[in-house]
Structure formats: structure tokens, C-alpha cells
């Protein structure tokens, strides 16, 4: 079987297209569901507002959007969006979203996660969903702290960060999510910050349009437990928001890795983007090659052929 698979990139078939025709796009009012339960000033509000804006701007329809999350502050997301959604278990939003994506190529699959959910308990899934290049967009709202459980060290907390589980300051080296994503084979890796709304929207749009696993690492401040964490990336707080240099080649893996390795706050924008066949496309290709041998047969007749060999 495998020898019939092509090595050439193929696109995910039946991928969702923006709404066209007579049905108008949604208004913000139609997209809004529960009032968010986040603390006032939380960076996640901004990401949610920009998700609404993306739906509005790109004229996505309710029924074609699936918003999927695990557990954490960020992961309350689906309740706030008027669309089909699932609030799954801690760390496992990606495999759940993969099940949706692989069985329903006609849907937009968005997963929202946090640093604990995506990189700690769900770290294994981050690696494997990226390497399999399953078509979906993952937005990780990274606040570098466990917020829902009230201030414990997270896998992205910087060394020395004082939390309730490291009262003397964090001792474990933090993960660099963008570097990790590039290393494990993600085909789209971008960084943005909730404090720069236009940049968040542009990044999410580019991610949505990518045919593959698109990962958006979004700094999103926790004003309650890690206030000021991202001031150095916010010009309004005296920091700098350095966009990826114009001449950066997004298909150059080593260059992307180098950019991702810059000291905090680093570079914002698309660091890496390559086109390679999605798992969705590859599985569809396997199916097409098998199904071509059974053209015109009903499912029971295909099974009958198998049973005939078991007599």
C-alpha cells in the first residue's frame, strides 16, 4: 500500500471555505455566549475579542466552527463562543481536536490552551499533533503561571519566579514553546501578544489559512498572579514589540530556530511556515487508493469479499 503514496504535497480536501453567497456573516452579538469568568484585566479577554473579530471578518458560520479546549483559565474559551464546542479534560485538547479534524475536514478546528495545559500535562500531545501535521489552529495563551489553581510554577515560568510551589523562586528551566514547536515539526509557528490586538488578529488569520497544524504562541498576562510578566514586550509599559525581521525566510528552519531562541521578549510574527502534506491529506490519499479497488460496491459487499476469504 505505502508504495502508492505520493511524496508530493497535497492539500487537505474539503477544507472549510469562508462563507459566500446570500447568507450574511455573523455579527459580534451572534457570536457572543456566556460572559467570560476571567479576572478583570486578564489578557485572555483580548484573545477572545479577536477570535470574535476573526469569525466576523472571515465570515465563518456558527455551525462550521468548533472551539475546543482542555482545562485552565484559557480553556474556558468554548463557553464564551456561540458555536459548537467542547470543553475536554486537562491537557488533551489536541488529540480531541485531532479526532474532530481527521473525521470532519469541513470544519474549522480551533483549540485554545494555556501553558500548563499545552506544555506540561499535554506536552506529549503537543509534540505528536505537530509532527503529524494535523490540520487545526492551536492558540496557547501563555501567562507563565498556573492561574486557575492560583499561582503555582508553570513550565514557562522563568527561573526565579516566586510561586506557591517555589516560594524561593522557580528552579526548573522553562520551555521555549516556539523552539519546541519548530523542533518537533510544526508546519506553522508564530508568536504574538494579547497586548497587541491587530497583531493577534493578523496572526490568527494567517494561522487559520495555513493548511496544517498552526501554532500561535500568544503572551497573555495574568494580572492576578503574574502581573507585569510581559511589560518588556509592551511598548505602552516601556518595552519593545519586535516584529520578525522583514527579510526573514519563514521556510528556513535554522533561521526560524535562531529567531525563536532570542532572549525574552524575542520576536513576534510568523517564525516558521512550510507547506507539507497534512495527516488529513495523507489519510484521504490512503482511503482513495483503497476505495478505488471497490468502486460501485456497497459497504456490506466490501465486507462480504473479506468474509469470503475467511471460509
Amino acid at each position, binding site marked *: 500500500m505505502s508504495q502508492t503514496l505520493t511524496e508530493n504535497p497535497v492539500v487537505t480536501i474539503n477544507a472549510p471555505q469562508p462563507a459566500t453567497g446570500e447568507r450574511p456573516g455573523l455579527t459580534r452579538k*451572534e457570536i457572543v*455566549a*456566556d460572559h467570560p469568568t476571567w479576572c478583570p484585566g486578564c489578557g485572555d479577554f483580548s484573545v477572545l475579542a479577536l477570535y470574535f473579530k476573526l469569525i466576523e471578518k472571515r465570515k465563518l*458560520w*456558527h*455551525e*462550521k466552527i*468548533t472551539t*475546543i479546549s482542555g482545562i485552565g483559565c484559557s480553556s474556558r474559551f*468554548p*463557553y464564551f463562543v*456561540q*458555536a*459548537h*464546542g*467542547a*470543553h*475536554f*479534560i486537562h491537557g*488533551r485538547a*489536541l*488529540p*480531541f*481536536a*485531532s*479526532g*474532530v*479534524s*481527521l*473525521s*470532519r475536514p*469541513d*470544519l474549522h478546528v480551533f483549540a485554545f490552551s494555556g501553558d500548563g495545559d499545552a506544555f506540561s500535562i499535554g506536552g*506529549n*500531545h503537543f*509534540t*505528536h499533533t505537530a509532527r503529524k501535521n494535523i490540520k487545526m489552529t492551536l492558540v496557547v495563551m501563555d501567562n507563565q503561571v498556573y492561574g486557575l489553581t492560583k499561582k503555582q510554577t508553570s513550565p514557562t515560568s522563568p527561573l526565579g519566579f516566586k510561586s506557591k510551589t517555589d516560594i524561593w523562586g522557580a528552579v526548573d528551566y522553562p520551555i521555549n514553546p516556539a523552539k519546541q514547536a519548530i523542533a518537533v515539526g510544526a508546519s506553522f509557528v508564530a508568536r504574538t501578544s494579547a497586548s497587541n490586538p491587530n497583531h493577534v488578529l493578523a496572526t490568527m488569520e494567517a494561522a487559520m489559512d495555513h493548511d496544517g497544524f498552526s501554532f500561535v504562541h500568544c503572551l497573555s498576562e495574568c494580572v492576578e498572579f503574574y502581573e507585569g510578566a510581559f511589560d518588556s514586550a509592551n511598548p505602552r509599559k516601556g518595552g519593545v514589540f519586535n516584529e520578525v525581521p522583514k527579510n526573514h525566510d519563514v521556510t528556513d528552519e535554522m533561521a526560524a530556530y535562531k529567531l525563536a531562541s532570542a532572549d525574552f521578549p524575542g520576536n513576534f510574527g510568523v517564525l516558521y511556515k512550510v507547506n507539507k502534506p497534512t495527516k488529513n491529506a495523507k*489519510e484521504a490519499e*490512503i*482511503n482513495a*487508493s*483503497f*476505495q478505488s*479497488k*471497490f468502486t460501485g460496491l*456497497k*459497504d*456490506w*459487499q*466490501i*465486507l*462480504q469479499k*473479506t*468474509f469470503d*476469504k*475467511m*471460509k
Partner: protein
Amino acid sequence: MSDTLTGAPTAGGAKKVSRINEVVIRIAGNSQDGIQAIGGFLARLAGRSEQEVMTFMTIPSTISGGPSIFQVRIGSGEVLTAGDDADVLLAFYQHSYEGHINSLKKKGIVLYDSDHVVPKPEWEGDYRHVGIPISSLTVEAIGGTAKDKGKNIYSLGLIAKMFDLNVPKLEKLLGERFTGKDPSILNNALAAFHAGYANSPSNLLETFQLADSQKHGVQQVVMNGNEAIGYGLIAAGVRFGAGYPITPWTDIMELLRRELPKYGGSFIQCEDEIASVSMALGASFAGRVSVTGSSGPGIALKTEAIGWAVMAEMPLVVINVQRGGPSTGMPTNIEQSDLNIAINGGHGDAPRVVLAPANVEDCFYMAIEAVNIARKYSTPVFFLTDQGIATRIEAFGQPDLEKVCQDITPDFTPVATHKPYDLAAKDGVTQHVKPGTRILDGKYPIATGLEHDEYGHPSGSPKVHMLQNAKRRKKLQALGATLPLPKIYGPSEGNVLLVGWGSTEGPIKEAVDRSRAAGDSVSAIHLRHVNPLPNGLENIFSGFNHVFVVEMNDEGLYGYGQLGAVLRARYCDPKIQGINKTDGLTWKVKEIIELVKNKARK
């Protein structure tokens, strides 16, 4: 059992042909000898000859090598088990000979490879020894390079001669098995087979003929339990699954990975057990009920997500091919010790459905039932088989596929409004609309593991938690009310009622047959729906003095085994007692009979 076969040889050494009704052959060797292939050929031949067949095998959990056996029982009448004792032992090595001679009936035939086995004089009186230099004769037949390979097919020829098996049918099976490969492989196999068939050892004084089958015109298919599950799921319309390799579940995932693409479906190998159950749930959420499965530790890893499926009311089929536990336990042995985790695994009050097929044919039809229960009641369904049924080959009447195959393509017709967790729903039974479905009032549902209101939005209200808990319970109670009572095997009143579940149906039935033939009052029921149980079991129990629950698990802290404890809790009936064992092997009929006798005497 076949008395003729174990009878004394005729005087004078003339070859005699005896008619027999059934035969039990145990093949003992190492795991690379291809002894499973011999057993497989015999089983498929029986299937094609309208005979009943059942097999039993053990495999070592080592990576390569180690002693292994395959036992096949072929009969012209009903075959319920793979047989307690063998009529013929085919032993390739000294360890096979010494280790399995006890499983041979007195006066049974031990056919041994005299290149490797030195018979023990003290056993020569008890068993009829036939030594054949199988290894060297195989090399002679198919060339010097073959070494140990091919002696299984040579032995198949010997057995074919001994039991006057249908040679053209066996040749056809060999042809099918080695089809498409290098033609010299088939030629070698046929050469080995015919060399074995032509060998007429002077000390083999008797050949046997199986009586004609009592079944006529029945088209049979031959497969093992894992295959029956895989094809049952396909027939049921399942088109997505996800899993992680673990023995003995792996065969099912390999089958689905290979077969589903023909139907436009996919089976995904995941990075771990948790990802597999999660991915299957994602696909169930997205459209149609999906499958995941595992064995042993893998099931433990999945329990959190199964709890989510209960809370979110998401359909899912979880295949659990049980093996010896806890922890890594006995990966290639048989045990029924996952009933507790199937019914109760995970935290919180999390009712779910547990089904247990009784035999290979049942694996096929119950897989369809599992899918339909999952869909109708929007619930996870545990499907409990075990290592014994997974690898056991049986022949059964070919299913009417046109009739049983279902199309469960989801419906995306827009709906006016939708409450996924509607508390007013009859019996608490609700189903989800699938993503892609427009909901005209603009209120979209969330599938969630948080306690929730009727739309799936979080609710911390104590009242809501009680009502939703009741909803999740009531729908399974409603299912329980629809379940048929098991048929009683034997009279409905008497001294002892045996209660079994899962793969033990055959030995329990045979124990009933033999006990009754010996004048003891024993009947049996077999539970296929384990959670919820069908209503009215107490009316069956009331006809007996003793209710013995026969299980392959430990008797537990309080002495009742896992199903025994459930039945005790439900019926508070002190006559419910456990008959348990954990030796990792299928029940022998005589073991059950003995334990029943001891227990009934107390």
C-alpha cells in the same frame, strides 16, 4: 469425548480405521515453529467441512521464542470448549513432550519429533508413543536450507493422514495462505505437506475418520474473537477509531487500520492511550460513534477520559481485551479481572454500559449492539473480552451482511433548538447534534466535563448536579429495563445455578452437561449485559439452592469475585457465592465440576 480414539490398538498390528465424533489435538513447540499456522489450517478446514471447531492457544510474553501451544478441538456435534485433555499431543521438543504429556488422555497418542525428543520409558505404558524424525524428514522433503521451517506443514500432513482429512481442501487452504508470494514457497509447503501425508509410520496402527457433520448447508466463516470484533464494528458503521499498541488488543487496531480505508474510514495510531481515547471522543463528538480499545494498563490510563464521556454523554465504544493484572501483570494470560474498572473505573458517579460477549460469534453481533447502545443512550460502552476469546478460533454461520450492516452517517439537518442535556427528556435519554448542524435559534451547545445546565454551560448548582446525576443514571436504568433475561441452560429449578460472563460460557455449559449426566442438579445462566444487569434475575435465582458465580478473577477481600460482589450488592442474597481462579488459563470443565461439588457440599 472420543472414546474410540483412546481405545487399544487392534491385535496383530493391522491398520484399522475408527470412526470418531471429535478429536482434541494439542500441538506443543516454540513460538516460532508456526504451530499456530497448523492449528489455523485445521480450524479453517473444519469450518469448511461444516464442523464445529474451537481452539485455545498460549503464547509466551517474551519478545521471541519460548514454549507455545495450540490446541484445536474439532467435532461433528456441538463444541463448547477447546477440550480439557487432548487425544493427540504433537510434541516438537523434549520440553514440549515433558510439559504437556499430562494434558494427554490416558492411552492417547503422543506424536513426537524423534530428532529432538527422547521418550521416557515410564510413560510408554500410559500413552501410545509414535516417534517420527519430523525435523530431518522435513529437510529431506524440502531441502537443506529449511532447517526448522516447514516442519509445521510436514506435521499437518501427518495429522491429515492420521485423521483422513480432506486433502484437496487443505491444499486449497495452503494455496490461499501462500498466495501472491514467491511460488517456490507454496511449492515447498505442498512438498512438505505431501511428504508428511505419505509418511506411514509402522507404529501408527490406526487412522481415524471424523463422522459427518450434523450441520448441512451452513456456510461458515472462521475467525478469532479479535477479528470478529473488528468486523462487527465495521458492520455497525464505525468509521473512526484510535488506539495504542498493547497485547492482546493490538490485533483489533491492526485490523481496523488496514480495513477501514476500504470504507472511507480511518484508524489512527496515537502517541499514547490517553490520546487514543481522546481522539476517538473527538471523532464521536464530530459525527459518529468511534472506537478505542486497549488491555490492562492501557484501560487504566483511559479512565479519566471515559469519565468525561459519561459526564458529556458522548457515545464511545471501548474494547477491553482483558489480560492478567494488576499493572503489567500477565500480558498473554487470560483473566476476567477488569469488571470492576469497567463498571466503576474513574472518579465520581460515572455510570456506563458494560457488555461481555460469550463467544467468537457473539463478538461480531455484540460489537454492533455496543455501537447501537452507545448511539441511542449517548454513553460510553465497555466491551469486555479477554485474551482467551481474542485468540480463540471458532467457525460460525456466515452473517447476513446485507441485513446486519448499518449506515450511521450523521444527519446535519438544521434544528430549531437544541438542548444536549435536556432534563425533561424521557428516561433522561438525549443525543447530541453534530458540529456542522445549524441551530436556528442561535444557541449552540458545549460538550463538557464540568457539571452543566441543559445547554452544556457550567453550573455549580447543587440542584442541577443532582438532577444531571439522576439523568445519567436513569438512562441506563431505562436500558436495563429493555434487556432480555438470559436463557437458563438446564432446568429452571434445581440445586446449583452457575452464573458466568464473558469467555467462560463454553466450559460452564459443558460442566452443566457433564454434571447432569452424572446425576447432579446443575443449571447455568450467562450474563452478556453486565452493567446494567437485566431485571428479574432474582426470579431465576429463586429456583436454586445455590448460585455460584464462576469467574477468572480473585475471590477478593470478601470472598465473592467481581461479578459475584455486584450480584451480592444488588440482591443481598447469601446463597450467591464465588467460584474463582487466577491461573491465567481457561477453565477446564473438570475444574468447575470439582469446585462446584466442594462448594455445594458446604
